[in-house]
């Protein structure tokens, strides 16, 4: 039912050049270039206020472009907004379900907004309730549903028109781990069926799980772009060594390690590409974690605990957008 596997057009689903969104004096999106092709799962990753949602709203044709060019499904949102929206599925950041209608009615009425017949919308609604495992709640009101159920219903609703592209703004924010995994599972199935997914998130695991390619946004600009693996390769090391010291010892130990790494005659210099001293631990970015730990031991560094882990998107993210809280 949801299959989108066809080679009809190679035309990109989204093309943006120098895309800008301003609200008065505030620049939410500051000249970004993005291209998303058919069947791709593309992510906008960034902290709150990075401009992700503003970008998504412009792509969804519900927010006028301030400057630059934007083509969605080959059309200009300023001219063909309604025509583009007819082929999009949208999962907004906050659920916008119709609380005056039942679960099933939410789907039927939404299908009607797309001009579907009552019969079509009902059949499709039934299929979708099954897809998101809500068939037993069909006649229930929306209000008593759990957060995860509401999210799934919103996803089902976004699929009512069998969209060419699905826009998901923070699809799992606020859900418990079980609910998140159910949502991921459904999105993964859609991806396998060839539906183009465009999502925003600030969860690294979500981006690593779902996205073929992503951009890291920071203060309205794109800070980096690539596949999760390529981003880790380009912006971090293969592994990260995390050292913990007694509480008041972290800073001095950190300074000591920084000094060690600076010494040209030590092998540490070649092993460690970056040292980061945090209030509670010291991070060493290295392609060989175990060798690094051995060298530290040899140099007389005695941490309370040592953890060698693979580098993650989170390391890339924090490297690019910084650790300080921006609101």
């Amino acid at each position, binding site marked *: 039912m949801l299959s989108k596997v066809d080679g009809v057009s190679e035309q990109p689903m989204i093309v943006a050049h120098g895309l800008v969104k301003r609200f008065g004096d505030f620049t939410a999106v500051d000249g970004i270039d993005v291209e998303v092709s058919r069947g791709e799962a593309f992510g906008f990753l960034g902290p709150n206020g990075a401009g992700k949602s503003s970008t998504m709203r412009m792509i*969804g044709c519900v927010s006028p472009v301030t400057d630059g060019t934007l083509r969605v499904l080959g059309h200009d949102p300023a001219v063909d907004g309604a025509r583009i929206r007819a082929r999009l599925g949208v999962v907004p950041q906050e659920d916008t379900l*119709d609380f005056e209608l039942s679960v099933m009615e939410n789907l039927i009425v939404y299908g009607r907004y797309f*001009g579907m017949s009552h019969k079509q919308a009902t059949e499709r609604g039934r299929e979708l309730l099954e897809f998101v495992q809500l068939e037993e709640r069909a006649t229930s009101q929306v209000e008593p549903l759990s957060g995860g159920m509401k999210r799934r219903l919103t996803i089902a609703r976004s699929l009512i028109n069998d969209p060419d592209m699905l826009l998901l703004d923070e699809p799992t924010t606020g859900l418990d781990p079980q609910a998140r995994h159910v949502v991921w599972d459904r999105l993964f199935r859609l991806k396998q069926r060839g539906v183009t997914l465009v999502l925003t998130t600030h969860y690294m695991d979500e981006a690593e799980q779902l996205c073929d390619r992503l951009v890291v946004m920071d203060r309205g600009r794109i800070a980096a772009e690539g596949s999760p693996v390529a981003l880790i390769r380009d912006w971090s090391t293969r592994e990260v060594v995390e050292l913990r010291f007694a509480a008041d010892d972290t800073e001095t130990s950190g300074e000591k390690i920084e000094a060690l790494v600076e010494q040209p005659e030590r092998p540490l210099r070649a092993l460690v590409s970056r040292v980061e001293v945090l209030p509670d631990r010291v991070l060493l970015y290295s392609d060989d974690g175990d060798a690094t730990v051995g060298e530290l031991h040899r140099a007389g560094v005695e941490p309370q605990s040592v953890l060698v882990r693979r580098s993650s998107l989170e390391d890339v993210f924090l490297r690019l957008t910084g650790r300080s809280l921006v609101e």
Partner: protein
Amino acid sequence: MSTPTVQPSPMRLTPPLLQRLVGTGGARHLVERNARVYRREWLVLVSGFLEPVFYLFSIGVGVSKLVGDVALPGGEVVTYTAFVAPAMLAASAMNGAVIDATFGLFFKLKYNKLYDAVLATPVTPVDVAIGEITWALMRGSLYSISFIVVMLVIGLISSWWAVFALPVVVLTGFAFAAIGTACTTYMRSWQDFSYITLVQLPIFLFSATFYPLSVYPESLQWVVRCSPLYHSATLLRELTTGTVGPGSLVHVAVLVALGVVGMVVTGRRLEKLLLT
């Protein structure tokens, strides 16, 4: 990153001129949506019909006895009940339309966030404006049609012109629904709704509803002529008592104009509020 030649896009998302005026046809789906909601709340519909009926009986049975007959501008004399009934009819269309156009719309706009979801579909702000106004005028008309039946049954209709009362109550509903929705788009909180009551009550009382326009001094008469309900009530009175003249067309024109302006303003405002 190099920025290619910038081509400024227009700040609107709903283009062709015709669609800006008459929408894309999505309005009917909103009407359908509202009908589904009210299917469960039919009691709310009934209560709105009863108010003007109570007024009519209170005045018809009680006040009418004290007042006697009333002379219309053309010289015809009718009973006081027959004088007041068409005004109550106009008021029923007004009340029915205003409730959904104001409280109903505001709730959907600010609390249910209905239109955030609706505008992600091919439905446009103009469709939303047309849909909600249509729904409100349907509700107003429903009250009025029941009221016409009541008038007919108790013998308050004395002319075949009254057949045209039906389209006129629909037109009344349209004018008030459109003004109501337009005003609602400017509301910031529920407190602002006290202004609606503040305006609606004097309109109901002073629009030549309970006594003829000639009671007012000349200068005040012009103030009354600014009231949409005056035009609706007078027009309906002319129809139910068979005193139609060329002046009746002026009333029609005023109501049409108010409705069209209200609808256009509503569409623009919704676009400005929701497509940011």
